[in-house]
């Protein structure tokens, strides 16, 4: 999806939202939101008062209309949020043109079928220039794929059978070669389908915190309903016949319509903000959980350090000239296409002017394998020159290789290895035959600014754990340099899973990123598991979010969005409840002053007349919803300044502000409607 952020008030979205906010007046839909349902009933009852007018028709009509507007405004907020989601969904869907897929029959021949006919485990063949018809795993072949339709990133990526780069997403285009793909999702159940229905609001379920908040708001509504119902007999006692219009106006002003009207918009907007950052969330629950995360498991490579390590130094063994070490290291790295290998060749050239060269006689390169953890070169004896076998690799393995030939590893090398590790580097030991020549210092480059980022996380109460395959010494040094709180060295997928379980066991909520199939159990176990889009289908299915940009640092933004959503809810709830103080001061004196003129001084806002006071409060109550829609959609900014300071700040803005603002607002409206002679 081309994820240009939809502007806050896109004309097209607003137009459609206006229509939707009327359609949503359907009482059956309102029943889902008790606060707005009560408001709607109140509006209807007030309209009914028009049939038997005991008060001026125009006044009752205005109150009734504003009550109705209150509901419409709340509907509008929800519709705008949904509209933004739908706009995103439309751009997602546009990648889903009617596609014809080449499905492989049991006998191996191909047949053309409509993409919507594809079922799980069907195998399709896609050749260069064609669009991949559905989510799946590559079972045969390798190809470059343009995923810009999904990620917005124009550089093509390699997708190949086996390994961690086997997953492809429907809607992306094969640029070269061809792929056989096993479809992994039935039509309508793919990742995109799921996301589309989520952002459209169709399959949106209330999150746990939203449910708790709805209970609170409903209970408050019930309490205020009791307060208003009891007022009627109180009035009878005091010989003050309260009008139904005034009672309903007071009720609607008291019940938390502001947060009640904006609550679902806040939730939808949260999902939407994630989407704008190219993250697909499988549920609103996951977004909410992101706000609660207090442990982050971060892969070292790519997140904390730049992907590649660079050779920075040669440390020769005693009696070995540096140049000889560099020469052997360069020979051993000639066929090594990894960035590390290339950096060794370059370093040897830079330091000793050794050029990549033709060896000039038969030779075999020994590739790196996970078992040997070494690579190198074998040059058989030829024309009087002795046989040369050169290896470079992990210290333990090279030492074992040397010792197997009867050699020994000098203690200075052991020291050098430990020293490099301590400095956060990766030592590669180089040996020729039974002789250890020295150590190559591969340096990990910690990303700029990452340290500050972690400090910020710490102040948010989030602990970072670095996951690395490095040995503990190396890991400790990088951890110290990057400023992470803890690290997991020589990590295996099992260790990751165990670590997550242990953290959860002691009450923490854990987030992690992963891409490989072997990450799947840990991704499933984590409270927030973000799978990289480049990863395997298994990883994507195990996690509850997918990052289309495959950027592990994105986790930090996800946490921020989760927090922002919770802060917004709390802030608007506080604001909504605090507003009631001023509304009481507007309406209660207005209701009583007729019977007890002595209470005049209680009208501290000096509102012009009882009717204008009630109408002003109702109008304020309605338009504050509209006024707060931008805040609900954009979210209250989360500031990593620590819980105490943040609470204090928000309490002053939304608590104190919530008490003061309506006094000003209601007074202003009162002046206005009296100037316009509306009452």
């Amino acid at each position, binding site marked *: 999806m081309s994820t240009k952020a939809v502007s806050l008030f896109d004309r097209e979205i607003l137009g459609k939202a206006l229509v939707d906010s009327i359609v949503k007046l359907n009482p059956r839909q309102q029943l889902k939101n008790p606060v707005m349902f009560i408001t709607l009933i109140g509006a209807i009852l007030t309209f009914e008062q028009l049939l038997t007018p005991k008060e001026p028709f125009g006044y009752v009509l205005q109150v009734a209309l504003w009550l109705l507007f209150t509901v419409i405004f709340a509907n509008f907020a929800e519709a705008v949020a949904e509209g933004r989601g739908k706009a995103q969904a439309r751009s997602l869907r546009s990648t889903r043109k009617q596609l014809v897929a080449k499905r492989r029959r049991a006998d191996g021949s191909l047949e053309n079928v409509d993409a919507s006919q594809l079922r799980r485990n069907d195998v399709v063949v896609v050749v260069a220039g064609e669009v991949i018809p559905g989510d799946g795993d590559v079972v045969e072949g390798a190809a470059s794929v343009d995923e810009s339709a999904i990620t917005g990133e124009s550089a093509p990526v390699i997708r190949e059978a086996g390994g961690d780069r086997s997953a492809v997403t429907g809607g992306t285009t094969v640029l070269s070669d061809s792929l056989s793909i096993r479809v992994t999702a039935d039509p309508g159940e793919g990742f995109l389908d799921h996301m589309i229905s989520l952002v459209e609001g169709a399959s949106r379920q209330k999150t*746990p*915190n939203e449910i*708790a*908040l709805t*209970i*609170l708001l409903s*209970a408050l509504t*019930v*309490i*205020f309903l*009791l*307060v*208003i*119902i*009891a*007022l*009627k*007999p*109180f*009035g009878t*006692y*005091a010989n003050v016949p309260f009008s139904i219009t005034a009672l309903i106006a*007071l009720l609607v002003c*008291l019940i938390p319509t502001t947060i009640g009207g904006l609550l679902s918009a806040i939730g939808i907007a949260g999902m939407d903000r994630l989407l704008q950052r190219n993250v697909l969330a499988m549920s609103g629950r996951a977004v909410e959980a992101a*706000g*609660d995360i*207090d442990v982050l498991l971060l892969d070292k490579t790519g997140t904390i350090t730049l992907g590649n390590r660079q050779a920075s130094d040669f440390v020769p063994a005693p009696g070995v000239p540096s140049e000889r070490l560099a020469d052997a290291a360069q020979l051993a790295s000639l066929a090594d296409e990894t960035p590390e290998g290339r950096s060794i060749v370059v370093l040897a050239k830079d330091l000793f002017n050794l050029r990549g060269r033709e060896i000039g006689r038969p030779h075999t390169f020994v590739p790196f394998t996970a078992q040997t953890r070494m690579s190198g070169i074998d040059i058989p004896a030829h024309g009087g020159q002795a046989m040369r076998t050169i290896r470079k690799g992990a210290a333990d393995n090279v030492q074992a290789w040397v010792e197997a030939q009867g050699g020994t590893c000098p203690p200075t090398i052991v020291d050098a290895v430990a020293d490099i590790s301590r400095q956060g580097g990766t030592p590669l030991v180089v040996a020729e035959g039974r002789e250890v020549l020295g150590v190559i210092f591969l340096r990990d480059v910690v990303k700029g600014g990452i340290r500050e980022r972690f400090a910020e996380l710490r*102040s*948010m*109460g*989030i602990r970072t754990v670095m996951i690395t395959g490095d040995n503990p010494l190396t890991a400790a040094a990088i951890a110290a340099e990057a400023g992470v709180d803890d690290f997991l060295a020589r990590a295996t997928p099992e260790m990751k899973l165990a670590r997550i379980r242990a953290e959860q066991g002691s*009450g923490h*909520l854990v987030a992690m990123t992963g891409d490989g199939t072997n990450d799947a159990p840990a991704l499933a176990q984590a409270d927030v598991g973000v799978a990289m889009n480049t990863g395997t289908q298994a990883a994507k299915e195990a996690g509850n979010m997918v990052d289309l940009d495959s950027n592990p640092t994105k986790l930090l933004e996800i946490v921020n969005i*989760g*927090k922002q959503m*919770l*802060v917004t*809810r*709390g802030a608007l709830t*506080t604001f909504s409840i*605090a507003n*009631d*103080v001023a509304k*009481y001061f507007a309406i*209660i004196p207005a209701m*009583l002053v007729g019977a*007890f003129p*002595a*209470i005049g*001084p*209680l009208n501290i806002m000096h509102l012009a007349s009882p009717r204008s006071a009630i109408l002003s409060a109702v109008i304020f109550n309605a338009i504050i919803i509209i006024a707060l829609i931008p805040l609900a959609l954009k979210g209250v900014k989360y500031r990593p300044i*620590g*819980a*105490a300071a*943040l*609470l*204090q700040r*928000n*309490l002053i803005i939304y*608590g104190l502000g919530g008490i003061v603002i309506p006094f000003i607002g209601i007074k202003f409206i009162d002046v206005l409607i009296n100037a316009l002679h509306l009452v």
Partner: protein
Amino acid sequence: MNHGNGWVQLALYIGALLLITKPLGLYLLQVLDAKGKTCVDPVVRPIERLTYRICGIDPEAEQSWIGYTFSLLAFSVTGLVFTYVILRLQGRLPLNPQHLPSLNQHLAFNTAASFTTNTNWQFYTGEATMSYLSQMVALTLHNWTSAAVGIAAAAALVRGLSRASAKTLGNFWVDLIRISYYLLAPIGFAFAIFLVWQGVPENFLPYTVAKTVETHADQTIVQGPIASQIAIKMLGTNGGGYSSANAAHPFENPTPLSNFVQMLSIFAIPSALTFYLGRMVKQPGHGWAVWSAMFVLFLGGALATWSAEAAGNPIHQHLGVGPADGNMEGKEVRFGVFDSSLFATITTDASCGAVNAMHDSFTPLGGMIPLFNIQTGEVIFGGVGAGLYGMLIFVVLAVFIAGLMVGRTPEYVGKKIEAYDVKMAMLALMVLAATILGFTAWASVAKWGLAALGNAGPHGFGEILYAYSSCVGNNGSAFAGLSGNEVHWDDTTGFAMLIGRFLMMIPILALAGNLGAKKVIPASAGTFRTEGITFVVLLIGTVLLVGALTFLPALAMGPIVEHFLMRAGTLF
């Protein structure tokens, strides 16, 4: 009037309260732990063991929240029935030298409910209605047990907060016995001795009939086992007076010192329970934060009542009453404006309900503060136990709403506050509001309700509102002026008291069980800390806002209108 004396007394009172909070709190930690050790162990421990053996209680066996609640309710219902039966049979039972008759069924129900619920609302005149047996067995018994039940419920809630992944909340029977034996009995005994020293009678003699000096009329002088009853009525925040004049009676409250110590004893256990809370959740600052919120609410109320009463009534002043005297109507001259105002604030903060002045005769605003104190749900120190668990409801709400503003799912002492917890907390608040407003609305338009009114207009309405607030809040003090003891009044207030007590306790124990079963999330820099000034302000704001939003219209129809009418020259 000498305000200096008031300030000095207030300072002394605050100092004394602070002084006893920690030691008593430490003592509570031992009492509320089945394996706790106290200084009275050598005497009490054998009796405690014997009680367990006779009752077949296994002190090691803890109960789930359902088991705990069931035991608590079973015990309370038994006590309710027991008292009802004794009151109904009083005329035929011994220890009745005045030959007082049995009570009718409505009054017996009302009184039984009243004492079972720690309310001690009295629709009767103690000295003219209750035999010595009824006073000592049927009523004083509840003064002990209802206090112990309240403390037990609070202890269960605090255990729920302090435990992680726990299935049990303690054993109700053990709590009941230990609170009675280790806490109420020794302190109550010492307090009674103190009162006897101050001049409170403790005997079984029939009332003395004396000839008055001037007119040679017969005067009946009340006596009996008063000191022991007073001790527990204050300590257990019961408040039911031995005589109808309650703590204004010279035999109940003879000296300035007895007045001071009685006021202190009302707040003693509620205040110490906040310390207990802090220690149990391993966050002493939280206990003190809750204490501070209660304290600020108390101080504000006391100063407001004092200033309203000291300002007096402008109408009286037009008639020549010196403005410096303040409002002395309905006050015992021995105590004057300050001690009456302070006592009124304390007794309504703490759901005690003992009075040393007639709240009905306070100025409208001076009387509104005690009324509003009750309507906050009796959480300003509150009844023994009930004050703490009531306040913790507000803590849960404050944490839930404001906790979101730090960007996390709200948590309280490491426990996530989720839908179920919010539901239980709001249920308790809804019960409070619905019962007070519902009964008040009914009585204010019903014939039976209006027939009982001694005063018209907003003041009469205030009396009705006060009566139901006091009953639901289990306070027990009254705006006099209601000629109660009528079938409807007896029954409605009786139910109000039962609802206010038990329909509040059940959701709270459910909350305790649910919180206790949760895992504890370790605190971090991102955690909303439930201590410090911000939290105290937040908690005070929540209590005031919820109380005000619920009861402001009702208060407006009563004392607030009355206040403005008084300023305009109308009295009721």
